[in-house]
């Protein structure tokens, strides 16, 4: 290898700085030169952000200190998402970061629960899940190490200020040799023969040339979409929400270790508690409500005083047909958008980064097997999340025009059949790659009123009395263990208090 391989990251939002930090941690500076181009003139789409437990893996992969990171980003803990009014008006359930129950016999726990539930001897499914019971009492503690203790049986994520996270990672990455180039891009230069991106030209006249480019330019997708012409695969017929209004409010007394999503007439409202404020937003279908009405609805449903005017965001559900085309990888909003109903945005960036690192070309002529695999695995990620989001939409009462439409849509092939199979016998296909394993599907199905008519026959082998006794013991163990935990507010105040912003 002669000169260093030049990697240029375009855009310095959360995606850009996550990517830069990972490159700083994992690429040998003797072989790779990594630069990030961003302009202070261009704002980022930083709202209160809810994440998934995989984010902790990413921070560990970088080697970040959790306490320092949480202080720097106003972060709080997250044990799951509470869904309010989903299924039917007045219903609520939590999709947890953990499994239901523990092994009882030869069948899986969920099958025993189906059996007991149909016999009328089971408590609600959610009582058999430690992180849910804990979350509903606004308590939190880090998992204990002992696998026999129910207090070990969960994972956690964070609520954080994504803008502060990007700023924190910027400092971290720059300290480790990532070069930041300030400037607004006015032109993208392509190689005449290959069509590869050759360089970006800044307003100052500077050229930033590279062997490979990472497009983190947000919705405008400057390189992947605008320059290389990679189209968006439009999923708005399945996921019709196309707008959001976001507003921060003062921190409320109800300091939840979970995100809340409340279904509304024309979409749904999020609530994300940070240490010194609460992030709120209303995701809606603009065909079903005006911006003004959406803003009014949002402001009328805060549990603290609004700290700003609502800010409008526009989007369309879908992903770029290829996330890696020519010598350019798109990530974050430049690669696709799925509404934040299951907090998947940062996860998708993280997956793109991890796959890009392992598949990074070693020379300018890219082996076609590398982008081909990258695109295949990213498609798997997007498809799985898309289907899971659609499930949230279809399993509802048709109680408003939007909900009449979405509950009657034609499902993607990959989702059709799943609902029927679950109703028949609680069957959920387990797959190796991609998000949302059986416990997540169980939570949403049962939470939104889709219940199985029967369980695996192997669950019938144990006598009913034995099953009932084990279920009762488990619920009691979980309740007792939850009661030993400190409140989320106290835990944060002791573990990682952030200064007021």
């Amino acid at each position: 290898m002669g000169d260093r391989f030049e990697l240029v990251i375009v855009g310095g939002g959360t995606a850009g700085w996550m990517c830069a930090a990972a490159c700083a941690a994992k690429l040998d500076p003797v072989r790779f030169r990594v630069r990030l181009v961003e302009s202070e003139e261009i704002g980022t789409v930083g709202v209160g952000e809810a994440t998934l437990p995989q984010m902790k893996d990413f921070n560990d992969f970088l080697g970040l200190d959790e306490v320092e990171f949480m202080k720097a980003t106003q972060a709080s803990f997250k044990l799951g998402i509470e869904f309010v009014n989903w299924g039917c008006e007045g219903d609520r359930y939590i999709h947890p970061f953990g499994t239901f129950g523990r092994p009882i016999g030869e069948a899986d726990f969920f099958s025993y629960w189906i059996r007991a539930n149909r016999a009328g001897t089971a408590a609600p499914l959610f009582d058999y899940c430690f992180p849910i019971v804990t979350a509903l009492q606004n308590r939190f503690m880090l998992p204990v190490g002992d696998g026999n203790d129910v207090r070990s049986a969960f994972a956690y994520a964070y609520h954080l200020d994504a803008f502060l996270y990007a700023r924190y990672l910027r400092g971290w990455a720059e300290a480790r040799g990532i070069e930041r180039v300030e400037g607004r891009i006015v032109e993208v230069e392509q190689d005449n023969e290959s069509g590869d991106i050759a360089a970006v030209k800044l307003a100052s006249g500077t050229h930033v040339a590279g062997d490979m480019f990472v497009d983190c330019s947000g919705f405008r997708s400057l390189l992947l979409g605008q320059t290389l012409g990679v189209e968006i695969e439009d999923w708005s017929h399945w996921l019709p929400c196309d707008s959001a209004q976001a507003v921060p409010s003062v921190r409320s007394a109800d300091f939840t270790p979970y995100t809340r999503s409340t279904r509304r007439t024309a979409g749904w409202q999020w609530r994300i508690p940070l240490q010194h404020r609460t992030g709120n937003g209303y995701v809606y279908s603009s065909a079903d409500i005006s911006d003004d009405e959406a803003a009014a609805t949002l402001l009328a449903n805060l549990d603290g005083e609004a700290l700003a005017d609502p800010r409008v965001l526009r989007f369309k559900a879908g992903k770029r047909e290829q996330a890696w085309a020519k010598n350019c990888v798109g990530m974050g909003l430049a690669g696709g958008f799925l509404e934040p109903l299951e907090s998947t945005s940062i996860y998708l960036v993280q997956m793109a980064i991890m796959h890009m690192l392992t598949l990074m070309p070693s020379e300018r002529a890219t082996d076609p097997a590398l982008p081909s695999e990258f695109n295949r695995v990213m498609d798997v990620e997007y498809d799985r999340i898309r289907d899971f989001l659609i499930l949230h939409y279809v399993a509802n009462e048709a109680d408003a025009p939007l909900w009449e439409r979405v509950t009657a849509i034609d499902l993607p092939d990959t989702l059709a059949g799943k609902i029927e199979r679950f109703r028949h016998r609680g069957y959920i296909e387990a797959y190796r790659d991609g998000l949302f394993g059986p416990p997540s599907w169980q939570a949403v199905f049962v939470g939104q009123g889709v219940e199985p008519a029967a369980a695996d026959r192997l669950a019938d082998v144990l006598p009913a009395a034995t099953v009932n006794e084990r279920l009762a013991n488990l619920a009691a163990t979980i309740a007792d263990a939850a009661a030993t935990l400190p409140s989320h507010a106290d835990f944060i105040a002791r573990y990682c208090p952030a200064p007021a912003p």
Partner: protein
Amino acid sequence: MQRVVVFGGGVAAAMAALAVGRAYARLGTDVTWIDTGEAPAPHAALIAPPDLATFHRLLGIDEAALVRHAAATVNMGQQFAGWSGGDHAFLHAYGDAGSPFASLPFVQHWTRARQAGLGVALEDFCLAAAAAKQGRTGAPREAATRQAVKQGWHLDAARYAKLLRAACKRADVRIVSCTSAAVRTGGDRIGRIVLADGAPVDADLFIDTHGALVASLDPDATSERPGFCDRIIRASAPAFDPLPLYSRVAAHAAGWLTLIPLSGRTAIEFAYDSKTLSDADAPAALATVLGRSVDTAPPAPLANSARARAWVGNVVAVGPAAGAAPPLDGAELLLLQLGIAQMVLLWPIDRAAMVEADIYNEELAGTRARVADFTAQHFRLNARIGEPFWDDARTTPISAELASKIDLFAARGMFAHFNHEAHVEDSWALVMAGHGVTPRSFDPQALLTEDQALMTEFQRQLRAVASDVHAMETHVDALRRMRG
């Protein structure tokens, strides 16, 4: 499902009846096995992958019974000889292909070192491979490598079938011998089987390993897939001493020759392509390869067709009735076991509407395709250039999934995973590397390890493999211990 009928003979029917009997007789299910009498072919042996050892626990079959009654020996892998032409051989061992370090799979570091001139093969870092080659097996206490060493079996097919049949009797399976029976269908279901003596047998669910039941509902639903060879000669030779821990698959101008070590004999399977070698010439060709003549059965056909749908109406086709398994890699028992286990898991809830059939057919079609890919790689990657049989085999079309797997491994030493994978990454790595694929590039994160540190780690791993092998027991000691 109050009444279940298993229809067929041999290993498949016995294993299905035993699995269902053990799982559901407790719930009052009545299991009747109509034994149609097919027995394994003379001389036949089975290569059981490690998965079967786990399945045996559910079947209640212990290792002592296998060693005592099925001529079992320990199977730690398969050796492929001459697939690149010449004498080169490699071992697909059931274990880890080196120990991961610096948070990366070992194969990434190995690729980097190969590019820098390292001459050591991937399998030399594999404890299971090193142990098997030195005649050692079992798990070392206080292992230095922490590598997995998985063990399957080599089994005498006829004696294994008998052993399973005896276990069926103990599991309260009712066995009725009957060589011919009439099938009464109604719509898309089977209502009743009438035995030769006129006795009717009714059931809610029919498990068919024979093929007649599923064919009566779904007559033309089989398709051919590339099988490479269409004829087989089975034979026996005296047992090896010492007994190897792996079978050997040697490429031949007209096909391949598999030697399977059993207690008391070596089972031989000579598969060949009738376009390249005639039945008349095959026995002599076999004797030439072996350097002696052996006790041989006449040439027999080697089937290559499979059903698109194994579960139709209230009939589940299992084993040979579902389709012929790929001819290598222990695929026959692997697919049989997966087909039975999946059926037990998806045991139908409602005898009138079996929603499970669609799930089962999707799962099994996927599994069958991935298992077929594993075997197809040997033919795609063979390097016997200029031999017509092997040149054809190399250019036979492969699935898009296998093409992605080979391309990605060749490019980066990584694995394209699909649903229904039945073989682990390290098996793919050992086989592709064994067939001569050295990845062209590696994960750049490997460069964070200094050259000197990499060499030190390689030496450490090779020493750890050697010391672990030293602490393992010999094959003969292991068999003696298991026999009890």
